[in-house]
């Protein structure tokens, strides 16, 4: 059952106590589990999920996402996080931001934020600091740099690049210094010292979805050979 390719609509014969992740849905009357996203069924311990080439992000509380500012209002800013709705980001939800001392944030800026409210019928809300401690924890407006490009990849590729088991980051690192900011919503910002390297990484990033580590290393090698 695990590691097979399934199409949406298929019913999986899984234990009812299993915890399900993205791509699977449970029928609450039946207890049966259905596939909603085509891809490969994966399972580990007591969890099961789908790994497919999905691009649309459904916000989940606690996710770290990379969004783009689309509208600016006096007290808040609307951020596009590839979700069905635009998210709101209050201008006070930054480290050391008060009503008098506001963060400079403009249209088209990239923002690394955490989803704080994500309910099925509401607009999602994101924040740029830890609401309890008030610290930024790495979140905030990403300052513009040279040779940095942002692309939208499918969620699986973003998750793989974040995972420590995947050899993508290490393979790129062999060719030169680079920096990337990966949002779980599929948006990725890549910065290197050379424009060509950034371009190449942006071209191969969406292709790593279904590759094994060896194949990824081979792909990176051919792409960044110079």
């Amino acid at each position, binding site marked *: 059952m695990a590691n097979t390719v399934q199409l949406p609509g298929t019913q999986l014969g899984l234990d009812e106590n299993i915890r399900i992740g993205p791509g699977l849905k449970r029928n609450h009357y039946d207890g049966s589990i259905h596939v909603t996203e085509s891809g*490969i069924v994966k399972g580990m311990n007591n969890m099961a999920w789908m790994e497919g080439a999905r691009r649309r992000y459904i916000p989940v509380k606690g996710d770290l996402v990379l969004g*783009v*500012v689309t509208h600016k209002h006096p007290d808040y800013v609307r951020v596009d996080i590839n979700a069905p709705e635009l998210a709101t980001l209050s201008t006070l939800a930054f480290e050391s931001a008060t009503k008098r001392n506001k963060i400079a944030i403009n249209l088209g800026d990239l923002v690394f934020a955490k989803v704080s409210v994500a309910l099925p019928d509401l607009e999602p809300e994101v924040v740029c600091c830890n609401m309890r401690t008030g610290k930024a924890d790495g979140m905030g407006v990403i300052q*513009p740099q040279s040779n940095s490009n942002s692309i939208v990849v499918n969620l699986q590729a973003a998750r793989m690049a974040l995972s420590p088991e995947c050899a993508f980051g290490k393979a790129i690192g062999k060719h030169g210094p680079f920096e990337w900011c990966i949002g779980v919503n599929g948006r990725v910002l890549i910065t290197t010292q050379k424009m060509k390297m950034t*371009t190449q990484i942006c071209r191969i990033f*969406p*292709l790593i*979805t279904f590759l094994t580590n060896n194949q990824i290393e081979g792909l990176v090698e051919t792409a960044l050979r110079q």
Partner: protein
Amino acid sequence: MREPAFSKAEENFAKCAIFEGNRLDGRSYLEMRKCSIEFGQEFGTCVASIGNTRALAHVSCSLDRPSEVRPSEGKIVFKVELPPLASPSFDLNKKSAFAIDLNRLLEKAIVQSRCIDIEELCVRAGEQCWTLRVEVTALNHEGNLSDALCLAAMGALMHFKRPEVTVDGHDVKIHTADEKEPTRLTLHHKPFCVTIGYIEDDRTESDGDRQKILVLDPVRQEEQVLSGIISIAINKHREICAMRVSGNRELDSSQILSCTKIAANKVKDLQELIETAIKKDDKQRKKGRIPRVNCTVMDSYLGDLGDISDILEQINNIKMEAQPEVEIVNEVEPMNEDEEVHGDEEMVESKPDVTEVEVITPKTESNWSETEKWFDNSVMQAHGDGMQVRYDPGLTQMRRERDALQLELKSRETKEKELVKRVRRLEKRLNDAIDQDQIVEKLKAQVAKRDKRFKDLNAYLKKLPTMDEFHQVTSERDRLECENKELTVNFREIKEKLGPYIEKVQTMSTEKHQLEKEIRDLYQAKSELEDKLCCTNVTSIDNKENNSQEILEEKIEQQRLIETNLMARLKRERQERHDEVQKYESEISQQSKSLQLMMDALKEKNNEVEKN
């Protein structure tokens, strides 16, 4: 819906990339993406793709009444559709400016440039003519949509074949495919659209006369960044059919001319591409392989998906079910009720003169086309719009038999496949059984090893002392430890007792020394007195001599008595002390000896305990 937002980082990067000559996908400024053309099953369907941008065009024709103003010309209806399938920002109902713009450009390029011979489309002047419907749909918008739409439209028009018509007085007979081969449209010229974007190089400070960089075939990300776009519809003969310039920066005339030159060069390649594709398609059809547009996934490297054979089977089944029957059907649209065509129109379901290799259609209740339903009914009704139909029972019976045979063939093939699968499964099981035997042998060897180890361990265990012995030894050890403690306590007490004795001995020795000192002093005094006596004896032998002598002698005697007493006393004390010291020393030696013995005993016992 909306597009994914465009960030400043992407904008800056796209601009910098273009300024430095590295476009986002590694192309040069005037290089076009990979173009490809695919044709569908019906003549007149074409899917064109430029990179990931895809467009579908479909051309169909129907008989209609010509317009009164132009009675000897056919009609062309041109429609461009941008469905939400192509991009999240497209809305089906809203007529966006972009859609209208594209529609106008293509219409100008294809229809108004008169590339299609309209007069050929006339059947009977003033009465009947062909109406060509060209419907172009965008399938995916990844930049440069106008080029893709135009390419698809031209491909469809060049591929399309309309049925032959013979006019016999008032009768118009539309021939079916096997009566007369349908003809291609005559195209006077073939216009193709080439889009060039331009961006102003704003790295320089000066405001006027900034250089404009031309970028052929811009991608989505580049399109957002460009200062303007110029689309030129041009044909092989360098005749411009349509042109559209949009954006917020002007191009001057020399630049526009250079753009047209670039476009003219590209058009040759595009036309060649379509012509080779059409030739290939014709060859394939002659061989009998009717092409289908492949469901290709957009340029993605799928990698290792594992065993997807069952998914591929499902896909094949779906494809098979969706196949319409391979029959050239006369798509005769409803005509005006005034005119009745008394045709001996036989609804002959005719196969092309070609052996079918792939398509076997089961008789399913598919909603695919209206025409299929006609064949399902055994009664052919006269069509409402005046076209009469004759029903031939013999033919239908033959057709039924043929279909039954085909079904049987198919079922037998599926059975064969199942059997093959079963055989494979059983072979697998055999192999597994053999593997299992090997595994069993290995396990037996391991078990033997384990038994041996078990035996060794048992023997070792027997050699070890039992629990009782262990308890005895530990209890002995405890006992010896207690004794040890007691002995140490005793040792300490004895030490304490000896302490004062030792002190006493020391004090007595000091006193002894003092007494000896006194004796020496007394001896000295005595010697002095003797000297004095001598002096006095020598000096005073007068009256005083007797008295003084007696006195002196008395004194001397006294002193001698004292001396002897002292000496005696000293000797006595010395002896006493000596005795005491000896006594103490003997005691010490005794006790030290006993201590030694005890220590030795303890050591032995400790060794014994350790050994146990």
